[in-house]
């Protein structure tokens, strides 16, 4: 399975970036072999569309699953439309640690974006 991770650096021992769309690198890891590919996140400095762009690039690179920490609402819409599941890494995990944790079934699946879109506030009951 291919796992897309938003990362602070270009290799598998880099930290998972707390930012999703504005992380400097996108790393795609094969969860069976732990082989990986790192691409520069071209969306990181966009004034708008960073979230949708990063999601698209991760999907284009073949990600079946995405691991991040925070995923914004527009990026979330894209991942949902393309039926890509999203899991949350713990802060301070490296990309490798996050994928290992995912393989062991230890990562929590994310079911909603980090910040609700403006004007559509979620009400928690």
């Amino acid at each position: 399975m291919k796992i897309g991770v938003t990362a602070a650096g270009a290799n598998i021992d880099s930290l998972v970036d707390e930012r999703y769309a504005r992380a400097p690198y996108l790393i795609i890891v094969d969860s069976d072999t732990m082989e990986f590919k790192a691409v520069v996140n071209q969306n990181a400095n966009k004034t708008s569309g960073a979230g949708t762009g990063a999601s698209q690039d991760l999907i284009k690179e073949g990600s079946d699953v995405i691991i991040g920490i925070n995923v914004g609402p527009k990026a979330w819409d894209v991942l949902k439309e393309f039926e890509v599941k999203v899991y949350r890494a713990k802060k301070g995990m490296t990309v490798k640690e996050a994928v290992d944790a995912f393989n062991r079934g230890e990562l929590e699946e994310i079911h909603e974006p980090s910040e609700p879109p403006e004007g559509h506030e979620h009400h928690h009951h």
Partner: protein
Amino acid sequence: MRIAVASGKGGTGKTTVAVNLALSIEKKPIYYFDCDVEEPNAHIFLKPEFNNTEPLGIMVPRVDFTRCDYCGMCADACEYSAILVARKKLMIFDELCHGCYACQIVCKPHKDAITMVLRETAKLEEGPAKSDIHLVHAKLNLGEPMPTPVIAQLKKRIPGEGITIIDSPPGNSDSMVEAVIDSDFVILATEPTPFGLHDLKIAVDTLRRMNLPMGIVVNRSDLGDRELWKYSEDENIPILLEIPFDRKIAEAYSKGVPVVEALPQYREKFVQLFESIEEFVNKGME
């Protein structure tokens, strides 16, 4: 002839200058284009009777899925990631689209699957106003963040004849550039304060890059300091008119009464302002 009235800093009397200039020009026809689409306010002073309303907005892509082969060229062309293609799916985010047509341009020779449709983001209103001025303005719908494409659409309505006064949005960003571009002359409304001068310098820099001739109108000219006059001399930008602080002007303004109506002695000053600009523009054209 197109005269734009801009200001680096907001609240320095841009609309006051533009409205009173328009009211003091005898030549007809005269058009007033209020391009401050986030908060148009010239109508408060010029009191038009609107007789036409039209939607303005951004042209966004729609895809004919009987033609689309999901090649993804449109998505690659989009600078704003407003159109996404992957795994035989396509998504469009209208609110991210800047209406640049790049997606349609790349698709046309390939599958010609994209047509552009108007997403309304603003309303245009126009009609006859005081002193035979034809006023045209647009107001962004609530929550819409992009004034620049609306200003571009508004300006397409400027007729080839007569005199047009363009009331620019404040600031020095792309919306101001869109409003003042193609003008024959730009009036910069400012005030003699450190903030006023700071923002004026940015506006001057912007206009110089566009090769636009300009002059300064100083509002509340007897307040603040004298740095503006020094700057004007150093940079060789003429000060065309000085309007001192006057409580009567402020009171008239608060009631929506233009200066030239409340204090008729100002009409001659605005007539002279127009004549000096007209002379400058005509000289430049020879």
